């Protein structure tokens, strides 16, 4: 054993991996023995490139891969994220596997996976490095691959994959164009679409519940990936990496599948569960009130519980209010007020006070709101209401 290590142990360094400090490197069973692909070599090292095809017509879970032209609805939807007028061929779906789950300069990307549509179907491309010394070639190759596209599609790539990739370029002093891409982060989009329908928005759960796809036995969970790679770097045995390649491949294919699923949903308008409400909220937040109203109204046609129905109505009323459609807004508030909805009463009080200058009605609605708020122990609102009440009484007094 190394002298320094001995000295450090004397000083109290805990060496928990001391039992197998000496690792025997096995030779010969590299990735090429398990995964069909080819080595690409240069002065800057070598990378292993794996290409696979998924032809149009094949199924990924319940979704059929097919060529697709975007329609107005879908364009409106992606526009919310600043992505407009894209052809499917402009998008590259990508996912990276790293040596560490924490972000930081020490997290290495060792496997880059992506897929994209072309004339014949989906092409899946994976690029792998055996260790960090080959990173320059790796990053150059990835850069050249991405260059052909306009838009990145990822799952949590805004917070993870892209910052890590950017960091790798900086560390290797290689110029990059990562800031020039449009970016669809399907995690953020899934969170919004299935806000009311799914508890977990992890890709594996979305896959199961939305795409109804089940992974094969080769699958290994993402959290195991760093450990498997480390073992490979230490021992040279690539066999366990098969599972990592599989995991990465399914991740990117599922991204493409998920994208198609969302496009289908929008263009066919076949929505399930609370998807219409969520879509309404997505457009509402993007200030596309016309579209928002459309989806809210669709949501009201669906069977749903009272809470969701009330929420939808409140949203719809606010969206209409933003458009200045006060009459329609008020009739919804009135409908809601019948069901003792506090927001509705407050809004009606505001409407009658400020728009109609009808202080008597305003006072009535305020008093009703106060009654409701007392049951709900909405303390701050109650103070506001009390304030409104005294102001209205003052106004009424002046008038008389």
């Amino acid at each position, binding site marked *: *054993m*190394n*002298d*320094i*290590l001995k*000295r*450090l142990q*004397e*000083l*109290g*360094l805990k*060496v928990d*991996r001391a039992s197998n*400090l000496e*690792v025997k490197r096995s030779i010969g069973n590299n990735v090429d023995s398990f995964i069909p692909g080819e080595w690409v070599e240069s002065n800057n090292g070598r990378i292993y490139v794996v290409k696979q095809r998924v032809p149009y017509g094949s199924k990924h879970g319940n979704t059929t891969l097919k060529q697709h032209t975007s329609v107005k609805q879908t364009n409106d939807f992606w526009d919310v994220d600043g992505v407009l007028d894209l052809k499917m061929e402009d998008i590259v779906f990508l996912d990276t596997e790293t*040596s*560490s*789950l*924490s*972000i*930081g*300069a*020490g997290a*290495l990307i060792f496997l880059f996976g992506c897929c994209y549509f072309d004339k014949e179907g989906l092409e899946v491309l994976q690029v792998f490095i055996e*260790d*960090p*010394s080959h990173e320059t070639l790796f990053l150059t190759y990835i850069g050249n691959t991405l260059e052909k596209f306009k838009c990145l599609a990822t799952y949590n790539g805004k917070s993870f994959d892209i*910052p890590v990739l*950017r*960091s790798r370029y*900086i*560390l290797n002093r290689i110029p990059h164009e990562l800031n020039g891409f449009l970016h669809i982060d399907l995690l953020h989009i899934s969170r919004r679409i299935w806000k009311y329908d799914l508890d977990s928005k992890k890709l594996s759960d979305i896959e199961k519940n939305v795409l109804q796809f089940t992974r094969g036995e080769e699958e290994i969970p993402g959290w195991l990936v*760093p*450990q498997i790679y*480390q073992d490979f*770097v*230490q021992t040279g045995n690539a066999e366990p990496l098969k599972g990592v390649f599989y995991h990465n491949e399914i991740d990117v294919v599922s991204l493409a599948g998920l994208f198609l699923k969302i496009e289908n949903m929008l263009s066919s308008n076949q929505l399930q569960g609370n998807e219409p409400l969520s879509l309404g909220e997505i457009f509402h937040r993007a200030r596309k009130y016309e579209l928002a109203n459309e989806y809210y109204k669709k949501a009201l046609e669906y069977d749903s519980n009272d809470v969701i129905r009330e929420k939808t109505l409140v949203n719809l009323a606010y969206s209409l209010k933003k458009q200045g459609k006060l009459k329609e807004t008020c009739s919804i508030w009135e409908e809601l007020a019948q069901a003792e909805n506090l927001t509705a009463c407050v809004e009606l009080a505001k409407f009658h006070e400020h728009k109609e200058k009808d202080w008597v009605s305003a006072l009535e609605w305020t008093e009703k709101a106060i009654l409701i708020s007392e049951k709900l122990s909405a303390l701050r609102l109650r103070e506001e209401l009390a304030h409104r009440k005294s102001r209205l009484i003052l106004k009424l007094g002046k008038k008389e």
Partner: protein
Amino acid sequence: MNSNSSKSVDIDRIIELFKNGELSQLVTCSWIKNAQEASYNGYPANLDSSLLKMIEKLYPRGLFNHQNEAVQALFDGKNVLITTGTSSGKSLCYQLPILNSVITDPSSTALMVFPTKALAEDQQKKLTELGNSLINNGSLNLPIATYDGDTPQGKRISIRNKGRILLTNPDMLHIGILPHHTHWERFLNNLKFIVFDEIHSYRGVFGSHFANVLRRFKRILNFYNSRPNYILTSATISNATEFAEKFTGERFELIKNDTSYQESRQYFFVNPPVVDESLGLRRGLVDQTLEIFSFVISNQVQSILFSRTRKTVEITLKRLRETFGRSENDIHGYRSGYLPRERRSIEEGLRSGKIRSVVSTSALEMGIDMGKVDLTLLIGYPGTISSFYQQSGRAGRRNRNSLSILIASASPMDQYVIRHCAFVSQGSPEHALIDPNNPLILMEHLKCAAFELPFTPKETYGDLTRSDLSDYLNALVLLKHLVERNQNYYWIAEDYPSAEISLRNISGNSISLRLRNGMESTLIGDVDFQSALRMAHPGAVYIHDGNQYLVDELNLEDHVAWLSPHTEPYFTDHRSETKISVEQTIYEENKTNFSKSFGDISVNERIKGFKRIDWNTLMTLGVFELEGLPENDLHTKGVWLTIPENVVESLKNENKWQNEKNEYGSQWKDIRVLVVRRDNYRCMVCGIQLPEAQLHVHHKIPFRTFADPGTANHPTNLVTLCPACHRRAEQNVRVRTGLSGVAYLVANLAPLTLMCDQRDIGSFIESESDMANGRPVIAVYDQFPGGIGLSAKLYEKMEEVLQQSLDVIDQCGCDEGCPSCVGPAGENGMGGKVFSKAILISLLEPQ
């Protein structure tokens, strides 16, 4: 600035009390620092015009000489170290060049690191004010931001992308910035200035860690091709430049001539009077404080009282309020733990004069701008000269006298300082010490460094040789943190190494102290493993925040000590057996009467039992054995003195001790016979068999240290010896007593020179030591594995510390030793004082 009701006559009246009045008898020494007029020297050349306009307005008389000097040196591209006094306008020395640079170069950035959050906050406020006055001058909006653990996530990205002047602390630099340096690409690419404020606070373990953070930082700066200038500030310490250079690996231009205006200040050192002559007991600190404070109150003088711990602040505050009432003479407490809002209002109250007195920890010492008061009262020496001046510097107003009083505690350190004004008034003998190459610390940071950037074949790190560096890197390869390819070392592990290091500790496992509460339990605190064996062994009384607990169980497997409340009037003291062996002697020097050595040592400690000691009488109530506690091995650096046999012999023969006859109690005769019979009429050392009357019965732990003869005369404490062996045993006890007195003093006084805590060093004595071929040894060592530079410096300074030790003994009024000099009469018996003194005199005999 201060609207204040106290008049200059009031403060003069108090000064008179100390000079010639009622309090003059307590004064051990005093001196006056005369007011000094400022020397101005215009404004720096080449300053941006808007900036110049602003400072002309703010400082119409120009900048101080030293400020101009510092700014000019920075403009000339030099690194600058500023050690001028408190409130001498040090921060303007870096604010100006930084503001100038961010104004004239639209991309340039600057980093400022402060040891505490409060300092960073204060600086942010001042900088923002300066920046704002620039904006009013039609200049630009400067993104000045604090980036620390409290910065909201949402704000961090914008700070990274837009920040121009960044304020942070060492911990955040270590854990939040360096490991993510790629996110700071713009900031680091354009970095022109780095400020490290108050670098004297970066010493010991913290400093050694931080020096490594800096080494990592410099690798990263190198990667981005940035060559910023460094601006460091420090309190006056004797090795400031050397320390700055060791700390940063850069050369510095020293700016030390303080040309700012300084108030006149009178210093008085006060020693509470002795209340028990023979035991050397002095009046308590708080009582003495109350006496002095009564004059402060009656003269309506605004004051700040500095106390050493948060707990003593509260105790002092309570007594002051009880004694003086609180309504009209509003007395406030101030310490960390108070809400920021409370603190701001107290600072404001001091500024406006509404608050008359504040009792504070060192929290009020640095940075915070709160105006000045007439009088500061330091309750106990604050440990370092720089703290002493920071705290005293809170007193002082233009055109009138101010007063700073130091009251000594009973510790040998305070008792030394209180009689040696020159120690603080003339040039600092303090050394800030670090050892960035401590192997454990180094290893942790090399992990972080490799995480941040791979090590390339030709790279070096700090002052490590490439071959040393490679050894460490290869060790990290063996530990599977790194992989090596073509002599490049890459991080490959899964972890985030900086998260595993706390800069303020050497990492290790700690034991949590939990109070049982029926089925539940409450966490009282944590102690490190070594301390747990000493302080939290079964049966120990553990004192935390003034509350006492009894340790029921120490479970080292689960890392927990179980406590229950303790109400009995005793505390415990562990008894340990320590063995030291030398692993490697690095330096050695032979003096006339001793030799001193420095090197790698290993300290093996076994806790073998403990004593219960009465709170009131400090007498031993009982002695208990402990079994089964693991031994603890500390490999560290130490310095040891070897005392030649002839010195010991001459001391033994000189009969330098008094020994009164003890009255062993009415049953002594019977006990004696029992013990001799038990030991089979044999001397238990040499084995000789003698008639009963010729044999002696010896107390292993001296009789006089026990409260009750029954415990002292318990057979377990008694042993049969022949007269010759008894004499040797007694002599050995006396040698040990003398040695331990010297060790006690050295360990208590060395922190004055080493700027460390007393608990950072350990001491050890042995009258027949294997370290020195059976001769007596006194050893002092770093309490950190691998050492942290303390004993290395003590090796150089040993003679000075021995001289200080002798001074303390000479000036202590007690008879036979007390906690203020050679330590309480311990298990080695009485007479320590005279014997320790004899040893010190012979050691210090001129060559």
